[in-house]
């Protein structure tokens, strides 16, 4: 309908300006459904080197261009992708043999081999410790190349759960020969990967134009051209999908997604993400070392109210650092909402109405659904128990920089993404003092977490994580709030598979007539 309208307007303009009739016919072609797709997306890529950043929001784009070694299906099961098979060669889980698919080609036609895997995961990160992949999969020592499609990853410590991370952040394979030839600057300017789409045009902060790669190993995608329109303002994304200028929009404000579900031209999908809205608490800031202070912060938050007001009750309040229904969820455990106890805790810590607690809260604005609203609601809730919180707006890029270099000066509202569903990537990383992702760095936890890392994937491991999670909540080392709810609004006629990780993967879309 919208395309037809556009045609008529253009026709009017064309005839008004006396332009040749050929323009009218061009418009005619437009009126039929073309196989291009435009997506209103909230963030731009931080860098075109996917191994250098841990940037959950941009993973959809990386997967388009670079594909991924392994892949989480829509029901959160880890599946093979570029890596066809994997097998532990030893009981101690230090040698993992991986087999690549045959015939994976990069966009320049060259073959993807274990050389490229080794270059991306061993050679580069060992030379440049700033690359995020070194922090994501910390114990990769070397990769023995057995054949162009087979190799053995050697770990310095037992790593039974590492395969979860082969489908996650920073684990991408970039072309060695091309990268060496054009240099890092050249690669960032014109990146190529082995994914279903090649990058044909990039306007920073504005749009990413992709074209289907006709020699993609798993078959050419049916949608030939995809444009990610980068619109950080949520209102712009809402307006874009509502006016029909884009085909898909994601991460809209919750209420808008609900409102658009009654629009007959659009399909609005609102669903739980495998993400936890939580408060990162920096252990290196003096005031948060006091357990009573942390307890007060946690006890005074009414998670039910947050869910009801901002998410129509759809978002599930969480008491542990795990999503509802995931393997390490503890349904019977509930961290209470108790203002009286909060005030008592504050008193114990030496704060009362004469000497109120002063803290800072940092939050993004518009990156996650209702993020800034939740932040302000938290400030008001804390005010009710006598805590004065100063709110400051921050961008994700800045937060990642500050957190990774341990320079946060206050509590940070963050949405922790974990498509693996595994507790190691929840509590195991949120609380690991040796990795860059934790804000709570308690050296005393290090041996315990190391032990959990090394445990084989058994029910005992899950039980141990459950215990850690409960302890984390009791001590408020990190404060879980709600399970994040994501949304995708699309024009009717496009089937968008729903990923708990919030991915938008055009290669998997199908057009319905």
């Amino acid at each position, binding site marked *: 309908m919208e395309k037809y309208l556009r045609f008529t307007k253009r026709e009017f303009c064309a005839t008004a300006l006396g332009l040749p009739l050929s323009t009218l016919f061009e418009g005619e072609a437009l009126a039929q459904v073309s196989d291009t797709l435009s997506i209103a997306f909230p963030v731009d890529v931080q860098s075109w080197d996917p191994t250098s950043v841990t940037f959950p929001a941009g993973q959809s784009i990386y997967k388009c261009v670079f594909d991924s070694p392994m892949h989480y299906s829509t029901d959160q099961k880890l599946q093979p992708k570029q890596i066809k098979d994997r097998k532990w060669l030893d009981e101690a889980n230090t040698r993992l043999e991986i087999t690549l698919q045959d015939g994976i080609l990069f966009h320049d036609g060259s073959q993807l081999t274990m050389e490229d895997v080794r270059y991306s995961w061993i050679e580069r990160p060992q030379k440049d410790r700033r690359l995020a992949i070194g922090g994501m999969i910390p114990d990769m020592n070397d990769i023995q190349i057995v054949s162009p499609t087979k190799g053995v990853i050697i770990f310095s410590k037992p790593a039974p759960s590492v395969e979860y991370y082969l489908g996650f952040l920073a684990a991408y394979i970039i072309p060695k020969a091309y990268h060496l030839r054009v240099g890092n600057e050249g690669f960032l300017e014109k990146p190529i990967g082995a994914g279903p789409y090649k990058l044909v045009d990039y306007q920073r902060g504005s749009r990413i134009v992709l074209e289907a790669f006709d020699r993609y190993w798993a078959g050419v995608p049916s949608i030939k051209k995809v444009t990610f329109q980068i619109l950080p303002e*949520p*209102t712009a994304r*809402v307006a874009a999908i509502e006016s029909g200028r884009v085909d898909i929009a994601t991460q809209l*404000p919750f*209420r*808008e997604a609900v*409102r658009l579900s009654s629009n007959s031209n659009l399909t609005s999908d609102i669903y739980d993400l495998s993400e936890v809205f939580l408060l990162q608490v920096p252990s290196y800031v003096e005031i948060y070392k006091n357990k009573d202070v942390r307890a007060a912060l946690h006890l005074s938050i*009414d998670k039910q*109210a*947050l869910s*009801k*007001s*901002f998410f129509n009750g759809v978002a599930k309040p969480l008491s542990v650092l795990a999503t509802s229904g995931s393997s390490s969820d503890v349904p019977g455990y509930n961290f209470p909402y108790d203002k009286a106890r909060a005030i008592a805790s504050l008193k114990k810590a030496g704060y009362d109405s004469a000497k109120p607690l002063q803290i800072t809260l940092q939050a993004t*604005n518009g990156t996650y659904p209702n993020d800034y*609203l939740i*932040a*302000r*609601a938290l*400030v*008001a809730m804390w*005010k009710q128990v006598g805590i004065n919180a*100063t*709110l*400051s*707006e921050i961008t994700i890029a800045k937060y990642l920089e500050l957190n990774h270099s341990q320079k946060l000066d206050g509590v940070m509202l963050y949405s922790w993404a974990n498509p693996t569903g595994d507790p190691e990537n929840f509590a195991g990383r949120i609380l690991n003092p040796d990795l860059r992702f934790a804000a709570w760095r308690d050296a005393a936890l290090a041996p315990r977490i190391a032990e959990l890392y090394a445990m084989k994937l058994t029910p005992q491991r899950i039980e141990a994580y459950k215990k850690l999670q409960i302890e984390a909540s009791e001590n408020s080392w990190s404060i879980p709030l709600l399970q994040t709810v994501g949304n995708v609004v699309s024009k009717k006629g496009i089937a968008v598979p729903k990923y708990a990780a919030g991915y938008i993967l055009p290669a998997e879309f199908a057009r319905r007539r």
Partner: protein
Amino acid sequence: MIAVAGRSIGTKIRDFIGAIQNSPRVLVGALIVLCMIVCAVFAPWIAPNDPSIQDLANTLLPPMWSSVGSRQFPFGTDALGRCVLSQVIYGTRIALQVGFLAATGAAVIGTTLALAAGYCGGKVDRAIGYLVDLWMSLPPVVLSLTLMVGLGTGVGNVILSIVLVDWTRFCRVVRSEVLVVRRKDFVSAARLLGFGHLRIVLREILPSVAPLIITLFTLQVGIGVIVEAILSFVGMSVPADTPAWGMMIADGRSDIHAAPWVALLPILAMFMTVLGLNLLGEGLRVALDPRLRNRDAR
């Protein structure tokens, strides 16, 4: 001679007041501004609710005349359940505070430098003129934002950054007027009588340019209100829990479909305030400049 000077000023003031009474612009403008000042000063008594209280059970409530509205919230609530009307009323505080204080600062600095430049002439004038030109080589918004990055957020810094940017406007305009007044008879007369420079500047020149300064001041308050709104729209003004119109508008944008009143009321408030100030300033300008008065009376 002194008598001549005195009568000149006295007559001027009488003319001034007469002109004001005849000018609808001034009257309407003054009325609007007075209303806003009353709102700001008596906000705790006028506003129906505390603007910072969030009522999470009652978010995005429509105004009270709608079927689901409530009389407790005459203009409804925003996304956090805060009363829109109360926020707008309290918002006048920040707007007018910033506007008036910044205008005062800009007026003081700008006028002082203008008096020095216009009266002393020569190198002083050239130096100050150069400084003004230098400052005006940057778009004001760009300069304000840069200053806010350097200074940090907060009402005090907003006022400071407006002062640091807008003093040039005062300086330039007042200087031209000072140049004109300097050549007037009563000034030469005062000099002949042997009065010191400082006394001449303060007793003769300053009162003559005072009406112009008042006009500029009024207009500057309006500019200050707008700049504050721009800065809080970008999120670089007051902290998040202080009611400010710019921030209300920025917030109201995301719910513009479901709840347009959240953005519309602060927009209206800002428009009325600036309109009132502009009417007042324009009216004063016409009232005190006899040339303009006669010309416009055709």
